[in-house]
């Protein structure tokens, strides 16, 4: 019998983006670390994320975007989450968020301003992501993974 998960997360790729490898690898790491993962795969609307998060009462949403259109795709997401009663659900986004070269601080600010709690720098390793997530959710790391 499986022990209860330490936290519940919803993962997926936003918009018309097909880059799924990264989030899949991340899901694998999350599960191994004891999270309950609800994976939406690719081609999801903001509503898909919100619907699933409400349904499973998620502690966090992990949104992935690599194709470079993230800024256009997440507009208004935070407000919709709030309206759906997900004020407490932590919002994470990562991947490769912009298509041009700009200072990371700019990119990060853009998405923090959009209401995300954390913006993952490109190429961040699963280990580092898990550590951050456990810190934020006050959960204990199960895996001991190198960043």
């Amino acid at each position, binding site marked *: 019998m499986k022990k209860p998960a330490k936290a519940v997360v919803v993962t997926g790729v936003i918009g018309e983006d097909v880059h799924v490898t990264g989030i*899949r*690898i991340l899901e694998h790491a999350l599960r191994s670390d004891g999270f309950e993962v609800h994976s939406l*795969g690719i081609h999801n609307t903001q509503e898909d994320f919100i619907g699933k998060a409400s349904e499973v009462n998620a502690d966090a949403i992990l949104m992935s975007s690599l*194709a470079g*259109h993230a800024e256009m795709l997440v507009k208004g997401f935070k407000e919709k989450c709030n309206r759906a009663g997900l004020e407490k659900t932590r919002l994470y986004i990562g991947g490769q968020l912009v*298509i041009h070269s700009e200072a990371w601080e700019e990119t990060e600010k853009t998405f923090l301003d959009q209401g995300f709690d954390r913006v993952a720098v490109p*190429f961040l390793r699963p280990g580092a992501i898990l550590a951050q997530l456990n810190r934020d959710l006050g959960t204990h790391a199960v895996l001991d993974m190198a960043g």
Partner: protein
Amino acid sequence: MEISNSKWPDTYFREQRDKVLAMWPTGSEVELGDAVAYHKQMPPAKNAALKVLKARDENLTYLCPSSGSDTINNHRELLIHLQNEGEADILTSYIDSFTRNCRFEMAQEGLKKAEASGRPVLNGFPVVVHGVGGTREVINALDNPVLLFGPTPDARLTHEIGLAGGHTGYSGGPMISFWNYTKDVPVENIIHNFQYINRLMGFYEEQGIPMLYCVSGAMPSISPPSLMIVPEIIEVLIAAAQGVKHIQLNNWLQGHLAQDLAYILTFKQLADEYLEKSGFSDVETTTYSVSPTGRFPTAHDRVYALISYFTMTGILGGVQVCGSRTIDEAHHIPTKEGSAHSFRNARMFLNMLCPQHMNILENKDVQAEQNIMEKEVRAVLDKVFELGGGDVVKGTVAAVDMGILDQPYATSQRVRGKVLGVKDSTGAARFYDAGDLPFDREILEFHEEKIRERETALNQKISYDTIINDLTVISEGRII
């Protein structure tokens, strides 16, 4: 949806075209008579199909990027720079991902942003919103042929406008678009969309305008090449049935020299054989190679080595067109400078090796790979024909359903997803799990043996972590 591999009747094609051209205002700009006239006045040197045949006759390898930018200006500047500074022989209009998914209104919004901000916003060239006139502004500024580029479930309007706009070919196909670019679209719908595209190309061919169609099969991710070759040959046969006459065989290089070379040889041999068998003996096939789409290293010094490395493989494989990624790959949409540097690197390597006409294709490692690869392809493909009662399209629909056509890491929920690849101790892609592929003992044992070798080398059993690590290990600076 009932579907088969027979040529569309003109009436049916016409009905379909009316619907497609109505998908977005620019559709009304398309007038085939005018399009044909436009192509006829273009110098033959700007026709991709004719250019690659020249390469085949003269034993040349041409270089071809895969990039595109959003505004007319950005895109034109990018291609001019690639042509003049990067010495690229064939150019591409990489299509943005909104357009690929018929989200034209989003593409338009992004384009406006780009024009306003002066910096790129879309990840490719939104050919539909630019329309025929806009597209020709780009084509007219160039001396080299330009291809439409990028798999997508529905590139019908993209082709109507892109071809009328002066592109002379396209790279992509129904199978790769199904596995790797959709979530929940039935394969028959995507094949139907590609029959449209192929019929349109067939029409241009009937008007005496060669069009180059580059099949793509499936995105490799530590995939034994038969996983790509089988769907690629299916794409070849679907195209031929609609009257496509110039087909480029896309070889997805994953880095293992012997296996990659065997891929190039096996694919060409079997594609020609199955075309012949199916009665399409008048189709010209040429070969193309391109480096993998796994994560790239971030450091330029390393990426340069990869660009050189995959150029080497293409040349040794005798391909007519060698594609390449750029030093910007890991970071962002390639800039024109980054692209030019990358192609100068590939060109230098090519200019060293190509004139030697060194032939290592009889190498025993290459032949061993060829031998097993050929058995795998025949096993699956013949089963597909059997399931379709001789019709490859009917067979494909059934085989996908039964997991006889399968892929690892597919984005589509409609894929069985049982097959899984892993590297052997030399870096070649092997079946960790062959799922429901109709393989005999000999094939299965070959892969099991290779897996055992890797486990001995690692001295541990291969875990899911090994498999995942194989996916990104090249970005860390090594094949294994």
